[in-house]
């Protein structure tokens, strides 16, 4: 931790206005913006942690939680819902051991997010894994999808 941070700190050498650049490097280094990293820089630069947080939450690019290697997006449109997407989502979350209230598996391999209708109701339920569309999803196909994505 400290070592990574020190490198970033040296790079900007306390130049003014470097908050965003630092956060970009932090996200590069950790995959997201860890709380303690923010407090670490805040302490050294005499820049309030709240400023870092304000910036982090303003720009779409920054994530406050680590996201998985693979991103799965499940459609929650009416059609998918009727065709039982909810059940499949739960199964997927179980298989990936994603803690309740979280979106990312503890091993950090998968992030499961849900979005409103993707407009592909004809092949509902629809999942999108790493930008690839998986239609007419079933419990079985879901596990296959996970294997496929995991292999990469």
């Amino acid at each position, binding site marked *: 931790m400290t070592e990574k941070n020190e490198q970033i700190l040296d790079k900007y050498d306390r130049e003014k206005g470097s908050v965003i650049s630092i956060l970009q490097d932090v996200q590069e280094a950790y995959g997201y913006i860890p*709380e303690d990293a*923010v407090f670490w820089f805040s302490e050294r630069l005499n820049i*309030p942690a*709240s*400023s870092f*947080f304000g910036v982090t*939450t*303003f720009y779409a690019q920054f994530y406050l939680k680590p996201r998985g290697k693979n991103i799965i997006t499940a459609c929650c449109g009416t059609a998918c819902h009727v065709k039982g997407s909810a059940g499949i989502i739960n199964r997927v979350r179980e298989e990936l051991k994603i803690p309740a209230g979280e979106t990312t598996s503890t091993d950090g391999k998968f992030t499961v997010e849900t979005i409103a209708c993707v407009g592909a109701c004809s092949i509902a339920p629809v999942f999108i894994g790493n930008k690839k569309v998986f239609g007419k999803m079933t419990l079985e196909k879901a596990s296959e999808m996970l294997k496929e994505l995991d292999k990469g």
Partner: protein
Amino acid sequence: MSDNKIKITINGTETLCNREDTILKAAKRAGVHIPTLCNDERLEPYGGCRLCIVEVKGVARPLTACTTPVAENMEVVTESDTIRKMRAHVIELLLSNHPNDCMRCEKTGDCALQNLSYEYGVDGSRYEGEKWDLPIREDNPFITYEPNKCILCGRCTRICNEVVMAGTIELTGRGFNSMPDTAFRKPRTLENCEFCGQCVSTCPTGALTDRKGRGKGRSYEMKKVKTTCSYCGTGCNFYLNVKDNKVVKVTSAYEAPVNQGNLCIKGRYGYDFIHHPDRIKTPLIRKGDKFVEASWDEALELVADKFNELIKKYGREKVGGFSSSRCTNEENYLLSKWVRCAIGSNNVDNCARV
């Protein structure tokens, strides 16, 4: 006219103002009221609430008086049907995302938004749509935060960063979902907050209120007594808010030359001692190793006799008094006079050096 003064026209009346004035300042000098929500003279101009928009001759769209600098011969109109309609519309939008629970709101009677809603005769009812529904935050002894009542004027975050430089809170999020908050929305503790209550002192609505004063009475029920802080030597002024002969709250005196309404944790929240049960309320006379209550007459006669006796027995030089730099000028003067006249020595001193 001095070269620092320039002439502008406000609502048809010529007036002199300073070159570096904003339209808002100039109007204030000229005694013209312009409504504002995000303006606080302790802070840099912000231009977020848009209520201070005025018409400036030669400019197509309305300009915000708080951010626009005056210019020689500028012609400003602060009230017109168009302007009033626009302001009303802005207030309406604010109210469309506001709980509008004035009847039980701590701020009622002292709320800028409530007053504007009244003055412009609007509410938010024309817009059904999303309203914030966030829990009240009472995670510390001093400051209660009701996000739903926040109008994003940014005054709390600005005073925290511009004036106090505590950096406790900052605007977080974006757009409709932005709100003032601490880093990672953590509770306020001494780690991240000075508890000076400056944010409360500048909040125009009920979003930030003094927790200790909540429910203790409406602003208009309070007798507000302006006085000088009795802690450090800065000499800040503030108002003691008194209800039923009890001090229930301290509020800012923005006109105070020393502190312009700014206060620290002691000045704003260090008042409960006044009514603390430990207060000594009657004279006490030592009987053995105990103290027994006595009347003023009893006690003062005893003290007077005893001192006179000591003086007779040992001489004036053996008696004296200490006063304190906590006491008023009058008391200090009186003590030195008392020692020199009633006792008759120069044995008088105080802790002024500490």
